[in-house]
């Protein structure tokens, strides 16, 4: 069975645990967590990932900057990125999607939504 590696970039341990908890219900998924955008970039440089979840509002480097850097990196150009935001505002989503994010999740997070998005982007039936 193939293994999918998912990176969760989120400064809130509660959110990281929540997303991780939801994703662990998918078989063959390995999860790596990062505290912020810079930590996320370090993890991305160390190994290859199949899916990235990133918060938008984070210290040091925010999620939008991370999306921009990931999309300009040849190795991760085609890796699906999902942004997590507190605002349900259209503008915030559009910024993330314009930068190359594949999908978005708004807080409060619903585990079923995380699973649906992950399944869709990893092509898991």
């Amino acid at each position, binding site marked *: 069975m193939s293994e999918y590696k998912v990176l969760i970039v989120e400064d*809130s341990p*509660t959110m990281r*645990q*929540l997303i991780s*908890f939801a994703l662990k219900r998918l078989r063959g998924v390995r999860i790596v967590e990062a505290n912020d955008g810079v930590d996320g970039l370090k993890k991305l440089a160390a190994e290859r990932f199949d899916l990235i979840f990133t918060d938008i509002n984070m210290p040091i480097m925010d999620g939008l900057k991370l999306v921009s850097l990931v999309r300009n990196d040849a190795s991760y150009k085609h890796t699906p990125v999902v942004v997590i935001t507190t605002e349900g505002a259209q503008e915030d989503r559009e910024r993330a999607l314009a930068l190359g994010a594949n999908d978005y999740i*708004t807080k*409060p997070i*619903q*585990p079923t939504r995380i699973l649906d998005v992950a399944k869709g982007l990893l092509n898991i039936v």
Partner: protein
Amino acid sequence: MPTEEDKWLHSRGEEFLQVFKKGAEFTQELMKENERLRFRLVELEESQRNLERTVEDTDENRRLLQRIESLEREKEDILGRIRQVEEENQDFATRYVEIEQENNNLANLYIASYQLHSTLDFREVLQIITEIIINLIGAEEFAIMLLDEKINELQAVATEGLSREDIPSVKFGSGIVGQVAKTGESYFAEDVADDSPGELKPMVCIPLQIKEHVIGVLVIYKLLIQKTKFADVDYELFTLLAGHAATAIFSSRLYSDSERKLSTIQGFLDLLTR
């Protein structure tokens, strides 16, 4: 010259011959009739056998008809069972969705509980409570107010979406927040979607209490734009926060105090032993 007697004899001979011929013809006819009757008999016997066979076929048909009826009944039973299984399947599917939702809710509660007790640092505890309220409940503007028992006032120690200066101190028992602290009973505004500008109106007030002792109040003023109403799990989270957040705050405060005291005592001991 034939005599009269000869003629008579000849005539009688002729007559006898005629009778004999007729007898022969009659015998032949009888034999033919006999043959025809025997043939007819064979035909009738054959016909009877066919008839008997037909009777046998009818029994077989009757048996088959009975079998068909029995199978029809069996089919109806099976169809009934299939319908029953389908209904059960539908029930299971509904139950699965409910369990899935319950599982998600429990996961949220577990994470909230786990995070609340993951540290003894007072500031970290407040940060975790803030994260739970944002990420799991979906509040945009809220304050964590703790009771200062010396002056009998509730003061904001952490806020989100508002500055601490925006949240005035509240006398114990005064207004909605003060009453929640006094009675230990949660307050929920009738219309959570009411977002009219003006004075800060509490939408939800949750007492933070250890057993009957209220140490503070969690006050939510505004929900995130996409959050239009509270879900069942939100009320469970409120209940969890009311108890666990209070315990976490109380423990971390005690720990911080004891750390500070320990540090002071250690300082004195260092001075004495120098």
